[in-house]
């Protein structure tokens, strides 16, 4: 059977698509780039925000019209299949649903004469294939996290922490490097939680050290998002790993808010001062590090003073990159039931914070221009 894929959302979704493609190829199916050539269409969905959900439904409706009367199958995979199966069943009763935990069953879904619903279960972690695009590869080291954030629907879609064993990750890194990847992105919902379900303690630094030891070649590892409270437990070991020449001096540490009260409502497990301490320690030990963060504006409970604290935090901590999101209600989350911040207020705060982010980013990046003779000079930095 010829199968066409559309993939939306995060690195984990892209990696899941890669695994599904491998499964299908191993069962004798063919992956095609054009929907007109396909016998089945797989849409790997994202529902992290309301606009993502609406975009998915719009696209799925378009595809349904395209496929109508053709006998071609529609298979909906990804986070939406797990977190909102009722919504999908209502709009698309003819489609098969395959949750992220069931990606190895994609062959059954494609081959079945009737729509199937593969929703429950836990992710098998013995099979992984990297998603390689250009010269970069995305490798999921784990699914799920140990947090319980009020706003997060991904927690519903990928509930349990399931780390891939080191040997599986190493095999995938080798596969990616052999395929020409020079940038190896280790991704997870919280890379800092990696290994807790395997050996009872976080073991990301050990994993990275093992990769460097076991996988020869010219490549550089980028460590994906990790929660601040996870990093607190092993910051010294992580800093040691960051000093390795094959590891990008980079960390993605989501702050979410500069207000302790909002952090409490969000069920984040740290205060602003604790977060700030991590940033100070990272910059003290790895001065060239670049730090990316995530911020949500307009979360329930965020007043004007709280928002001002977030603006202050961005200026104070001088993030290299900020992924800014305007809060939107997600079903089956705690924050959905809280009194909401009005839309115009969220929009204004988003605009105001965008200005601050651009101002800070410009200052930081301008310092890279023409910085002749101050530091490394002609020294090779790789």
């Amino acid at each position: 059977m010829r199968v066409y894929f559309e993939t939306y959302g995060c690195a984990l979704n892209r990696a899941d698509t890669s695994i599904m493609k491998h499964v299908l190829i191993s069962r004798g199916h063919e992956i095609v780039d054009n929907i007109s050539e396909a016998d089945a269409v797989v849409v790997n969905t994202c529902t992290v925000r309301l606009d993502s959900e609406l975009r998915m439904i719009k696209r799925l409706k378009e595809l349904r019209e395209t496929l109508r009367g053709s006998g071609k199958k529609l298979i909906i995979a990804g986070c939406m299949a797990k977190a909102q199966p009722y919504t999908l069943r209502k709009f698309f009763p003819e489609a098969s649903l395959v949750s992220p935990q069931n990606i190895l069953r994609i062959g059954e879904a494609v081959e079945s004469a009737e729509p199937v619903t593969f929703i429950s279960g836990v992710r098998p972690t013995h099979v992984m294939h990297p998603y390689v695009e250009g010269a970069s590869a995305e490798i999921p080291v784990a699914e799920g996290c140990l947090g319980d954030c009020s706003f997060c629907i991904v927690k519903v879609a990928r509930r349990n922490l399931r780390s891939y064993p080191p040997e599986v990750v190493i095999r995938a890194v080798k596969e990616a490097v052999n395929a020409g990847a020079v940038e190896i992105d280790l991704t997870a919902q919280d890379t800092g939680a990696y290994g807790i379900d395997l050996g009872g303690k976080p073991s990301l630094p050990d994993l990275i050290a093992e990769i460097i030891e076991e996988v020869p070649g010219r490549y550089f590892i980028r460590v994906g998002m990790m929660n601040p409270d996870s990093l607190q437990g092993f910051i010294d070991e992580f800093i040691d790993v960051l000093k390795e020449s094959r590891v990008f001096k980079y960390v993605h540490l989501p702050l979410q808010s500069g207000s302790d009260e909002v952090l409490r409502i969000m069920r984040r497990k740290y205060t602003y001062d604790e977060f700030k301490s991590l940033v100070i320690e990272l910059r003290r030990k790895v001065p060239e590090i670049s730090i990316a963060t995530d911020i949500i504006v307009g979360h329930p409970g965020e007043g004007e003073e709280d928002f001002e604290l977030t603006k202050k935090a961005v200026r104070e901590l001088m993030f290299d990159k900020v992924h800014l999101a305007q809060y939107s209600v997600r079903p089956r989350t705690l924050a959905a039931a809280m009194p909401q911040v009005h839309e115009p207020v969220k929009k204004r705060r988003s605009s105001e914070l965008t200005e601050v982010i651009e101002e800070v980013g410009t200052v930081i990046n301008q310092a890279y221009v023409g910085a002749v003779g101050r530091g490394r000079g002609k020294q090779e930095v790789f």
Partner: protein
Amino acid sequence: MWGLWAGAVVSRRSFRGSLIGRLFNYKPIVLNEGGLELGSEVYVVVRGATFFDLRGEVLKAS
């Protein structure tokens, strides 16, 4: 801060067709060079910057 030269690894192509390199701290640097291949390592000079990324010129392949 680092100096005139920086090493970058070219790992992606943007949707506009430019090549995107990464400095050692993962800072993105846009390289409008025709002859580079994905996966190559180059020395660059940072000629400009926006809040979002750096703009670089390739001095030589490393």
